[in-house]
C-alpha cells in the first residue's frame, strides 16, 4: 500500500476568511434579471455564480450570500453547488485561464508534453496562478475538440492543434498583453469577461471568428469536391406528398 497517497489535502472549500468583494447592488439586479429567464428562480444559480466570478474573480463568500438571498436558498445550498462544478474557482484565478486538455486522446497526441512544458515555463503546477497574476494553468477534461488535438483552452476559447512551442508563444503573448485570437473564436479578452458571457450577458463578439476550423469543414469540402450530396427528395422512387420538391 506504500505507493498510495491521499489527494484530499488540496480539496479545501471556498476561503470564507477573505470576504473582499466588488459586488454591488447593480450585480444583485443582474442576478434578478438572470432569475427572470426561468420558471423557478433557483435555476439561475449556475449562471449567477458565473456572474459572481466575473466580478470577484472567484466564488466569493459575498457572492454566495447574494445568490442565496436572491434565489431563495441557503448559503450552504449555494456553497454545495459551487463546490460541485469544476469551473467555479475557490481561490482567485489569474487574468487568463489556460486549460490544457489532459483526457486520453489529447494527452497522448501531445497534451502531456504541452502541460509539462507550460508548467515548467510558467513555474506553476495544476490549478496554480503565476506570480504576476496573468495566467492560471489547469489540466482540463475533454473539451469536445478532439478533431483538433492537442487542444488548449484560453478563457474557454479553442486553441487548436497546439505544440509545446506554440503553447509557450501563447502564454508569453497573454502575459505581455499582446492581442491573441482563438483559432475558432473571438479575440481573447479575460477570464472574467468570459464568465460574464456565460452568465448570459452579450459582449458583442459573436460575429468574430469563422464558422469552423478546417477539421469541422473537412467532410463538407470533400463532398463539394466530389459532388456528393443527400438524395433529392423529389427524385425518390417512392416519393409521396411528404416530400417537398425543391
Amino acid at each position, binding site marked *: 500500500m506504500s505507493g498510495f497517497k491521499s489527494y484530499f489535502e488540496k480539496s479545501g472549500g471556498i476561503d470564507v476568511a477573505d470576504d473582499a468583494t466588488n459586488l454591488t447592488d447593480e450585480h444583485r439586479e443582474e442576478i434578478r434579471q438572470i432569475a427572470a429567464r426561468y420558471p423557478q428562480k433557483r435555476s439561475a444559480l449556475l449562471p449567477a*455564480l*458565473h456572474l459572481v466570478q466575473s466580478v470577484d474573480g472567484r466564488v466569493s463568500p459575498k457572492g454566495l450570500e447574494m445568490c442565496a438571498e436572491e434565489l431563495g436558498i441557503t448559503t450552504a445550498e449555494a456553497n454545495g453547488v459551487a463546490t460541485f462544478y469544476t469551473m467555479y474557482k475557490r481561490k482567485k484565478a489569474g487574468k487568463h485561464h489556460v486549460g490544457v486538455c489532459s483526457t486520453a486522446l489529447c494527452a497522448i*497526441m501531445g497534451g*502531456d508534453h504541452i502541460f509539462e512544458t507550460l508548467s515548467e515555463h510558467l513555474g506553476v503546477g495544476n490549478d496554480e496562478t503565476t506570480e504576476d497574476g496573468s495566467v492560471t494553468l489547469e489540466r482540463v*477534461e475533454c*473539451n469536445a475538440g478532439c478533431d483538433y488535438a492537442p487542444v488548449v483552452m484560453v478563457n474557454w476559447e479553442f486553441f487548436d492543434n497546439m505544440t509545446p512551442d506554440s503553447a509557450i508563444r501563447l502564454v508569453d503573448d497573454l502575459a505581455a498583453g499582446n492581442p491573441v485570437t482563438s483559432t475558432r473564436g473571438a479575440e481573447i479578452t479575460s477570464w472574467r469577461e468570459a464568465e460574464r458571457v456565460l452568465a448570459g450577458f452579450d459582449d458583442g463578439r459573436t460575429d468574430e471568428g469563422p464558422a469552423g476550423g478546417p477539421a469541422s469543414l*473537412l467532410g463538407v469540402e470533400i463532398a463539394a469536391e466530389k459532388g*456528393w450530396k443527400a438524395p433529392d427528395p423529389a427524385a425518390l422512387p417512392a416519393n*409521396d406528398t411528404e*416530400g417537398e420538391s425543391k
Partner: protein
Amino acid sequence: MTDLLTPVLSANWADDRPWRINNYERRGGYDALRKALDMQPDDVIALVKDANLRGRGGAGFPTGMKWSFVPKDNPNPKYLVVNADESEPGTCKDIPLMMASPHTLVEGIIIASHAIGVSHAFIYVRGEVLHVARRLQQAVREAYSAGYLGRNILGKGLDLELTVHSGAGAYICGEETALLDSLEGRRGQPRLRPPFPAVAGLYASPTVVNNVESIASVPSIVANGKEWFQSMGTEKSKGFTLYSLSGHVKKPGQFEAPMGITLRELIDLGGGMRDGHKLKFWTPGGSSTPLLTAEHMDMPLDYEATAAAGSMLGTKALQCFDETTSVVRSTLRFVEFYKHESCGKCTPCREGTWWLVQILMRIERGEGVEGDIEKLLDLSENIGGRSFCALADGAVATVTSAIKHFRSEFEAGYTTPAWELFPYEKSALFEAKPLAAASEHAGAQQKVGTH
C-alpha cells in the same frame, strides 16, 4: 445508392457567416417551421417516429417515441431540454454544429415544442465553450426578433420561450436526470428512475431531453419527408449522421454520412493514418463504448453492427490510436476521467473508479502485482450496473474491453513501465522528447476531484 457523404446538418457550414439568421433563411431555413406549424402536433410526432430518427446522443432511443411518452393529461407545463453538454471523451459533433449553424437547432426546438406542446424550452450547453454560448445566445435573440420565438409565433398561436443555459464543468450533467437537477440549480447528480423525465422531469413536470443533433435533424425530416430520411442508412439505422474522426489520422474532422459508413472509409477520407503508422485500436462512439481493433474496420457503423461486435455506436466519436500507443496509458487516462467526473452519489462508482485508477497507475509504472488484472475485472463487475446511471458502465467498458483485446500489455505492466514499452513521445503529433518525469507523471495526473 446514396453518396458516401451526405451533408444535411453541415451543408451550410462553409457558407459566409452561416450562424446569422438571414444567411440561414436564404437557404430555406425556417421553411420547415412554417410547414410544421400547419401540421397537427400528433402528425409531427408521427412523422419523426415513422422516419425512425434515433437519438444521436449515444443511447439511440427513437426520438419520436420519446416525444410520445409525454402524458397529454398531465396538468403541469411541459418542457423540452436540449442536451448540449457534449463532454463524452472523443465526442465533438454538437459543438461545431452549434458554432456554425445554431439556427438549425433553434428551428428544430420550435418544431419539437409545437409537437410536444411545450411553452418553455432550454438549451443546456456546457460552460467550457464560450464562443458556442455566444452563437447560441445571438441565434435566440435573432429568432425572437424574427417572430420565431415569443408569443403567437408566425400568427399560428404557438407561444414559446427559449433559454440558453451555460453549465459549469461537469461531465455527469450530460446524463439526462443529472442535467435536470443541474438546470434546477442543484449539484448535477442522477435521479432514481422511474419516474422518467417524460412524466416527472424538470420541476417534476413532463420533460423531453434530446441531444442537439437529434433535434437539429428534425427540420430536414419535416421539409423532405420520412421516405427521404429512410432512403439513407442501413436496414434498421436510418438517416444521416455526423461522424467525428480523431486521433492518429492525417486529417481528422467531421463527416456527415448515411448510417453504416465504415471506419475504413472514414479513415480513407481523412487521408489515412499518419505516415508509417497503422491503426491499433479505436472507439466507435466515445470512451464509454468498448474499444475495438483493426479487425473491425469494415463493420458498418450503425447501431446493430456495433452492438453485434460487442460495442456501441454511441456518439460516433471515432478516436483512432496507432501502434505507438500504450493501451495501459490510454485506459488509465480514460479511467482518470471517470474518476474525476464521478458525481459521488453511488458508492461503487465513487470508490470503484478511484481504486481502478490506483491499480492502473501501478501497472503503468511497471509495478503491477500478480492478480491485478483479475482485480481490475472483479472491480469492474462490481461497478458496472450497480450505480444510478451509465457513467459507471462507461468507466468499466474501457477497462474490460482493453483487457479483452490487449491483456498481454497489462501483464507486461507487472514488470515494465508502459513508457518503456511504448515511449510516450512517439505518440505525440510533434517532435518531442521523453516526458521529463514519466515515472511521477501518473501521480501528477491526480486532480482535486469533486469529492
